[in-house]
């Protein structure tokens, strides 16, 4: 919290600050995600730039009051452009001892703590593993602590509703929201309206929440325990209409847009899985767009149904995460063989196996790239911000339709649940991605009659014709068995197999011809270090690069959306830098790909802690590389790859080993 004016210790005073990072933390049942969402909407309406990071446990309700059950929502708001949810909170709202314990270590000295003291009884302290009361033992002396009896104030406020204390107590998150809304001058009218809308079926709950919200707001104003409240000016924005959007909603909307732009009905076959289910939920709401959603019996049926729909001429999509990707692998291979358009949306999460269902990771890239038997190339598109999920969905659909191929669209838990303001595009400006179905025979049979060959290829795209059932004269059979080039009958002939393997590979490789050239961003023009990224690291990498440049050093940045094939000139760009640093949420997936494709000494900066990179971690890594170059180290760093916190060697071809060869 950078203060622009001197703190004034008089009630009713207002300070203007340029940004703040607030973290709401409580029990899973305390409604912290909802509180965060509302605060986000209020902030968006205030015109601040913002970025959010929800963080919740995999259990729906872990034992109340336990550390495992802590759910948190972090929001970064500012009067200038920001990219990340912030490395550390300036303000921590802790609804119970467990929330305090699980989060307080992230709060820097002099940070603000807003605590619901009512929850700090002996039992709750013990459950959180506190031997002594942190409110009394001096362990919080480094912070500005505000002890507020939120539960009792909420109960008092809700008394007129006649709600039972047990029920009324549940409104305390709205008390906290009201309090923080006052503290940061958020507009409250929208939340008040929202409460009425959201709880209109249970008037007593609506009333209790509204009263608690208002009580929190008024408490801030009248209790005189805060030295001041804070004003954050609206950020400067490009002109336009904005909305706040999470990655999963943007992705769902992108699929609807792709269906509209392709003039094809959308079919989603999906099995519920965290953190991808929200795409299924969102699309299920929009049946008036003609979208058919099938909650399948399993992951395999989800993708199978999508592929069947594609055969019939629909835009077939399946969405999943983690283990679901493993289960779908066989059908992706079938789609490669059938050469039909199909989107496989992977909202990556921590693995292996069930792993970390609610935590983000970028560790499916190599699976998307290679996770099938046989030579089975599949294009890969990766979204880089929550709102970019919209455009990435359209781009993935474009490639799938044009080249008649399954396409992997990679997002992750951070993008899926994180949100940012999005300047809405003019729908008319979106690309036409429609393709033509085959309607006429394209060959002559041995009998001299016109016939249809399903595996003749377009000379430009190498795509085969998409002839859908219902088209007379174009009846044909496709399948997982190898097919004869052109005519498309079953063929076990060795030379033909090689032709087909190479044709499928050339088709996917050839997509690069029409991709925009990779262009590294290097405002100073003399950078020696290139930051190469993909996916959700975009925010942290961009912010890290900005900090380094602010400090007077040069660094270049290149963020890939197309992971297979790569942009046509990628090798050339990579080779023009002395150091290629690849921050990624895995142990080196993209790093391996560029090393093997271009024989460049790319170096991974890994982070697999279930959370996105902090800007500081990227900044530190860049500065280290620059320092090393400037100190004239001729031999590459002998420590091998390091993780984001500078610990131990990670896997991946070590530069030292290469140097030794």
């Amino acid at each position: 919290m950078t203060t622009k004016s001197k703190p004034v210790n008089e009630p009713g005073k207002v300070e203007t600050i340029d940004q703040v990072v607030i973290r709401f933390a409580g029990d899973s049942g305390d409604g912290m995600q909802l509180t965060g969402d509302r605060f986000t909407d209020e902030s968006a309406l205030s015109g601040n730039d913002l970025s959010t990071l929800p963080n919740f446990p995999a259990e729906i309700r872990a034992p109340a009051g336990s550390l495992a059950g802590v759910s948190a929502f972090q929001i970064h708001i500012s009067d200038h452009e920001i990219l990340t949810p912030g490395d550390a909170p300036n303000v921590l709202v802790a609804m119970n001892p467990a929330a305090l314990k699980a989060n307080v270590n992230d709060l820097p000295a002099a940070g603000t703590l807003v605590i619901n003291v009512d929850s700090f009884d002996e039992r709750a302290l013990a459950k959180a593993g506190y031997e002594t009361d942190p409110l009394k033992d001096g362990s919080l002396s480094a912070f500005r602590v505000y002890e507020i009896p939120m539960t009792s104030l909420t109960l008092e406020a809700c008394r007129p509703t006649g709600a039972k204390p047990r029920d009324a107590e549940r409104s305390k998150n709205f008390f906290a929201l009201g309090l923080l809304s006052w503290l940061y001058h958020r507009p409250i009218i929208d939340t008040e309206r929202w409460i009425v809308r959201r709880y209109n079926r249970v008037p007593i709950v609506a009333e209790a929440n509204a009263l608690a919200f208002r009580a929190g707001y008024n408490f801030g104003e009248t209790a005189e325990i805060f030295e001041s409240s804070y004003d954050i000016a609206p950020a400067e924005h490009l002109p336009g209409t904005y909305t706040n959007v999470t990655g999963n909603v943007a992705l769902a909307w992108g699929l609807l847009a792709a269906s509209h732009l392709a003039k094809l009905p959308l079919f989603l076959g999906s099995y519920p899985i965290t953190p991808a289910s929200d795409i299924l939920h969102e699309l299920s709401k929009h049946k008036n767009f003609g979208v058919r959603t099938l909650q399948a019996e399993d992951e395999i049926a989800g993708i199978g149904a999508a592929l069947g729909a594609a055969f019939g001429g629909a835009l077939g999509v399946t969405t999943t995460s983690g283990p679901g990707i493993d289960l779908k692998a066989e059908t992706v291979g079938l789609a490669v063989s059938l050469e039909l358009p199909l989107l496989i949306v992977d909202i990556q999460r921590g693995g292996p196996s069930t792993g970390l269902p609610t935590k983000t990771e970028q560790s499916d890239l190599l699976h998307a790239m290679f996770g099938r038997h046989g030579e089975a190339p599949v294009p890969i598109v990766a979204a880089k911000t929550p709102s970019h999920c919209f455009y990435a969905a359209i781009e993935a659909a474009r490639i799938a339709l044009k080249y008649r191929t399954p396409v992997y669209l990679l997002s992750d838990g951070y993008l899926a649940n994180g949100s940012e303001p999005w300047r809405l595009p003019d729908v008319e400006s979106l690309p036409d991605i429609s393709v033509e179905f085959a309607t006429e025979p394209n060959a002559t049979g041995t009998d001299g009659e016109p016939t249809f060959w399903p595996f003749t290829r377009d000379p430009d795209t190498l795509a085969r014709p998409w002839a859908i059932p219902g088209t007379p004269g174009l009846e044909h059979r496709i399948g997982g068995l190898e097919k004869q080039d052109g005519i498309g009958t079953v063929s076990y002939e060795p030379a033909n197999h090689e032709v087909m393997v190479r044709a499928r590979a050339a088709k996917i490789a050839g997509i690069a011809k029409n991709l925009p050239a990779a262009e590294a961003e290097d405002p100073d023009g003399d950078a020696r270090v290139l930051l190469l990224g993909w996916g959700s690291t975009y925010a942290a990498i961009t912010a890290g690069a900005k900090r380094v440049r602010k400090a007077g050093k040069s660094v270049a940045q290149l963020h890939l959306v197309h992971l297979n094939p790569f942009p046509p000139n990628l090798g050339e760009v990579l080779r023009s830098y002395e150091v290629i640093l690849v921050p990624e949420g895995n142990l080196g997936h993209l790093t391996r790909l560029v090393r093997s494709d271009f024989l460049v000494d790319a170096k991974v900066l890994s982070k697999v802690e279930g959370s996105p990179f902090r800007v500081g971690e990227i900044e530190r890594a860049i500065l280290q590389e620059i320092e090393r170059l400037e100190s004239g180290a001729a031999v590459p760093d002998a420590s091998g790859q390091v993780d984001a916190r500078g610990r131990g060697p990670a896997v991946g071809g070590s530069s030292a080993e290469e140097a030794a060869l």
Partner: protein
Amino acid sequence: MTDVAVPLTTRKDWASDQEVRWCPGCGDYSILSAVQLLLPELGVQRENTVFISGIGCAARFPYYMNTYGIHSIHGRAPAIATGLAVTRPDLDVWVVTGDGDSLSIGGNHLVHALRRNVKLTILMFNNQIYGLTKGQYSPTSEVGKITKSTPFGSLDTPFNPVSLALGAEATFVARTHDLDRKHMIETFRRAHDHPGASFVEVYQNCNVFNDGAFEAINRKENRADMLIPLEHGQPIRYGADGEHGVASDGQGGLRLVEVADVGEEALVVHDEHRVNPSLAFALSRLATGPHEPTPIGVFRAVERPDYGSLVDHQLLEARARGGAGDLSSLLRSGATWNYD
């Protein structure tokens, strides 16, 4: 059903130019010709007909049909066909599968396609053996089956496919066999005309790995005493002179009786439209395998809205409520704000 539609196509139109490569003597040949003989009678068009299969001997079926088709992956045909049938209600979608394909690896998809009542005609060729992988026991093989993978006899209790389908809430369940073309054609016709998911178990002889598995019941000379023809609205009886029959066992099940012993009025009258599937289920339990008198024909044919129609109905309702989707309004459906 004798009032055959005017044939617009001939059998030849439905056969692809591909050489049929099942083993000589395989029961699949007669099933293929039954289907190719039936389709012209149905008055349907090749371009609107799709055959989808998984893996196995039966799964080669689509290659031999001059229609649209997908030879997919093991067990997944019902799932793939579901996506097609739900998005293209104008098509006739057939699923051709085997006992291993649909009851082992693809068991999940089969039961869910049936309970959803997706408009599919599912023909399950049951030869009680894995043929394409050269002779391992299947989920319908009898206990004690000696095969390459069970040299000391198989230990697992087999599925009764008709019982399974009934338990999966199927609205149409039938059984036929590869030695009776006429019965196959009539059964397939009923399955095709059923407005929902239909499941037909076809006893099919694998003359290489499980020859004669159904001989005891379907050889010409055995049929009268070993096959129990199910006819809707008729007392269930069999035997050359209808001397055997099926009656209640007094405990909720059925038993085989001699008509002379119990009297005609004691026979159970078949009712394939009965909503409660108990009678159909009891019929499916009469034989423990193809060595006892076995019912064939339609066990159950009840009407329930098919899944695709229900999906379409929701789309129409949503349009009636909110109008056709507008992308620009969708993007602005949450809180929005403007900057100049």
